[in-house]
């Protein structure tokens, strides 16, 4: 019994809310890795608090899709003021929930390969999906989907499941964008090369680092991590002739926010030089506005896709379900 009481007491002290705050609180829902010690969160949290006279509470709720379904579960009761980390492929789904409002802030000129004028979502970083490989093990990577389709059967890739992960969904849309009606045939050709389909990016990348497959679906910016953080230049992204599909991660404010002004200030802060300069070496993605100090050296050696591919939010929404069933049919049988 003593143990029970003791652990209950410890639990209470660990979970118990802090003392009453005088300062207003801004609650931001985001994905797990953003707030981790190596993520962007620990840098921008104190920086924003220093200028807003508020307390910034970053709340992690799994990956991007999990954040959205959590908001849907909570509905208007949610404490969240801002959501950070929704990817453009689920933007329309987010809009359809009716939980978000237009931000109304002035968005400065962005360094994105495309024109951005969405009234609800503020982009904070972006990247290209790409297959990452190990230069020491693979001398001549496929330079296009066409070449990948034609590789011998023992050439393996690891991809993520579009039902449970953003990169997985990204690849689905990438192939749809390049091949349109032909996508099913492409998937059928890719099928023998797919070693396995993992639930999320971490498992896939972990397996790749263990040497399970020649290539893994990740981002063009992934090699920058190994270069900058580990001094390892053996990883590279394969540049595909057809172009690379983009991922743009966005932030948006909630209609039910009780701190709309603070929320808007936060969205403006997301586009500030301070926030944007933190992105490359914490989130390992491209900032939407190149910071004054420029990109880190490691980012300069990355491949530059010849063509940036992206569906509009509406197109992505219209295609999503059909593309998934097509994928299930052609890879799952």
């Amino acid at each position, binding site marked *: 019994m003593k143990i029970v009481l003791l652990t209950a007491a410890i639990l209470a002290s660990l979970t118990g809310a802090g003392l009453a705050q005088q300062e207003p609180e801004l609650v931001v829902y985001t994905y797990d890795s953003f707030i981790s*010690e190596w993520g962007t969160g620990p840098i921008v949290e104190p920086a924003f608090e220093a200028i807003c006279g508020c307390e910034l509470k970053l709340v992690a709720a799994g990956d991007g899709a999990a954040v959205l379904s959590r908001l849907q579960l909570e509905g208007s009761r949610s404490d969240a003021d801002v959501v950070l980390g929704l990817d453009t492929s689920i933007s329309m789904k987010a809009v359809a929930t009716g939980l978000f409002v237009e931000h109304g802030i002035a968005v400065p000129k962005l360094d994105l390969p495309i024109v951005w004028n969405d009234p609800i979502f503020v982009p904070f970083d972006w990247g290209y999906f790409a297959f990452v490989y190990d230069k020491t093990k693979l001398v001549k990577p496929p330079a296009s989907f066409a070449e990948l389709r034609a590789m011998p059967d023992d050439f393996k890739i690891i991809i993520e499941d579009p039902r*449970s992960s953003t990169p997985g969904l990204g690849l689905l849309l990438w192939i749809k964008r390049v091949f349109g009606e032909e996508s099913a045939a492409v998937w059928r050709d890719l099928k023998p090369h797919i070693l396995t389909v993992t639930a999320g990016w971490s498992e896939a*990348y972990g397996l790749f680092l263990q040497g399970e497959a020649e290539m893994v679906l990740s981002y063009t910016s992934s090699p920058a991590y190994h270069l900058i953080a580990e001094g390892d230049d053996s990883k590279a992204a394969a540049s595909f002739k057809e172009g690379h599909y983009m991922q743009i991660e966005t932030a948006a404010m909630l209609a039910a926010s009780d701190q709309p002004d603070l929320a808007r200030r936060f969205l403006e802060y997301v586009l500030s030089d301070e926030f944007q300069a933190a992105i490359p070496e914490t989130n390992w993605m491209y900032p939407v506005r190149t910071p004054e100090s420029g990109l880190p050296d490691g980012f300069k050696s990355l491949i530059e896709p010849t063509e940036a591919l992206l569906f509009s939010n509406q197109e992505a929404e219209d295609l999503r379900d059909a593309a998934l069933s097509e994928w299930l049919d052609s890879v799952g049988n």
Partner: protein
Amino acid sequence: MRLLGWLALALLATLGIGSIAAVATRGSSVVELPAGFWSVLRFTILQAALSSALSVACAVPLARALARRNFVGRNLLVAALGAPFLLPSLVAVMGVLAIYGRSGSIQTFLVWVGMPTFNIYGLSGIVLTHVFFNLPLVTRLILQGWSDIPGVQFRLSAQLGLRAGDIFRVLEWPMLKRIVPGALLLVFLLCSTSFAVVLTMGGGPKSTTLEVAIYQALRFDFDLAAAATLAVMQVLVCSVALASVALTQGNVAFGKTRFAVQERWDAKSNRHILADLSCMVLAVLFLLPPILAVCTRGLLPIFSGLPAGVWQAALRSVCVAFSASAITLIIGLATANLLDELRGANSRFGKVLGVIGFLPIAISPFVLGTGLFILINAIADPFALALPLTTIINASFCMPLALSALLPAFAKARERNFRLAQALNLQGWTRFRIAIWPEIRRPALFSAAIAAALSMGDFGTVALFAPPDGGTLPLLMQRLMASYQMDEAAGVAVLLVALSFGLFWLIDRGGRFGNQI
């Protein structure tokens, strides 16, 4: 004590039925089974059935070998056999792949000697990993069955000149008939809700189980009605399995932590020794390398420094584990006590109620988590209750294991001490303390130990209720992996495994010390 039992059952029922209902009410009213449902259902049953059949088929000879051979390090081997079951699934998958994967040691060797390689991904990989997890658990269950055969019956058999085959027919087969159905059921239930293993080892969407479909409904489609429907189907499948076992009178009982060796005069020939030896060697060769792979990968980061925050996370994990363990113990004892009393009075009613205790394992953790989230969200902030909720969910997942250890022990205690207790007019708490607790102490602490160890490793539910600042060790591991820090994650995994195993050992030890009966 009785009231507590009803409360415990009500809590389990709320968790089980309530969570599905909560998910269902939030969904649209029109529900149809998703496309491809039947093939998903078929695959779910197929992989779970194969996994459980294979686990049991391998566990029987292994348990027999362990039951009848004594050697230096035997107890250590039996203890080490428990390790795979305590591994977080993602860690186990990485370990299994380090050995059997495309770049694993075996394939590397095959390539080196110029032999053809094999593809582990697919049904075979799923089943292999599930067997890796569950073989040790089943071995323990069956080993207990062997230990429960009175040693003198083997003397009697030796005297009567019964050979191994006769003894199997006369002594071992009846025991297996009693234990195997329950063991099959347990593994089936565990495998039918498995998620990370199925996706990672499955090799593609053809390996889709109900659990994956539920995840898709919840996350991709946000179709709560579909998720609830799938969850109901999952419970139905598990109920059919439960019912079929209940009909064959299977009663899984485990809880012993020390297994007596039985001297066997029918198995003294070299042939038998060789057979047992190869069983044990094969088991060690199958189970140990993945664990070693996990450990060696994580050792370097442990020495070169674990990430900051790891100790707070470890403390939180240990707290969750201890609390889950305590709750499992309390709910388990109250439920087992009630069920035992009811079975004494009205066996059918007690049996039906007993199913509630097994419900949590039959329900998708995602549905359970989401349903609980909806329920809690109506009255309080789920974030603020993150750790207590995680604790309760973990504890409820451990209930089936706890009940299967406690129910037989209660029955035995009743048989042995109840008349005496009645004669001395011992009532309520005193009766429990004097007449029951000494008999059930070991299985009780064993289930508490299992609960603690399993709660350390779980993160299916933790992620949904991720506390705002700092999570548990598994969450930390997940976040490290999501930030490219695979080596540090491996280090945390080793710490996690060591803590799980240490906690298990510590609590289980508590059951062995003191009054030995």
